[in-house]
């Protein structure tokens, strides 16, 4: 019973984070800042919900629990990699930034060497 309650609490946290992240995805001004909201939604939403499902099934069905944990691990490893790849491509093809951006370390590094 305790495991089911903890699992449901984690799933609710995941639903809250995913809705907050999608609202940020709509309201933020440019692609680089929107990736922040997308990360909130992937990490706080999908990973925490899958982890909660893993804990939810822990006492009833351990094999099920291990599978859900593996899903959470796959999202943990692939989501930052995909975001890094697409944003590096965006910076290389000079997608414009928000006009009030004041710091672009990658551009400074390319200028130096």
């Amino acid at each position, binding site marked *: 019973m305790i495991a089911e309650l903890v699992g449901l609490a984690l799933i609710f946290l995941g639903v809250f984070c995913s*809705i907050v992240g999608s609202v940020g*995805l709509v309201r933020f001004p440019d*692609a680089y800042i*929107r990736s922040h909201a997308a990360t909130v939604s992937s990490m706080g939403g999908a990973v925490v919900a*899958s982890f909660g499902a893993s804990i939810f099934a822990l006492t009833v069905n351990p094999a*099920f629990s291990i599978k859900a944990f593996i899903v959470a691990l796959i999202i943990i490893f692939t*989501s930052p990699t995909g975001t890094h*790849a697409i944003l590096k*491509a965006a910076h290389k093809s000079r997608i414009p930034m928000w006009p009030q951006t004041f710091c672009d370390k990658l551009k400074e590094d390319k200028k130096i060497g």
Partner: protein
Amino acid sequence: MIEPIKTILTLTVLGIILAICIAFYRLVKGPTAPDRVIAGDMMANLATAVVVILSIYYEEAMLLDIAILLAILGFIGTLAISKYVEGRGVGD
């Protein structure tokens, strides 16, 4: 499984589907290609979470294999489109 837990799980699935619908607005409107790719990547991850929650709703372990497949396919799609965006100029 007892009945109130099934109702709660239905509510959580509806909440994540609401988040996917809000992100779909950015996928349609997004001014540049990376916006659309980021929104699509996020939607794939949330769909994975929906499938995991549905698998504990129906008590069906086969749905978790579909969840693993969705996560990996979303990642491969993001990498492919990022290689495609990389060689192009400003805009779409």
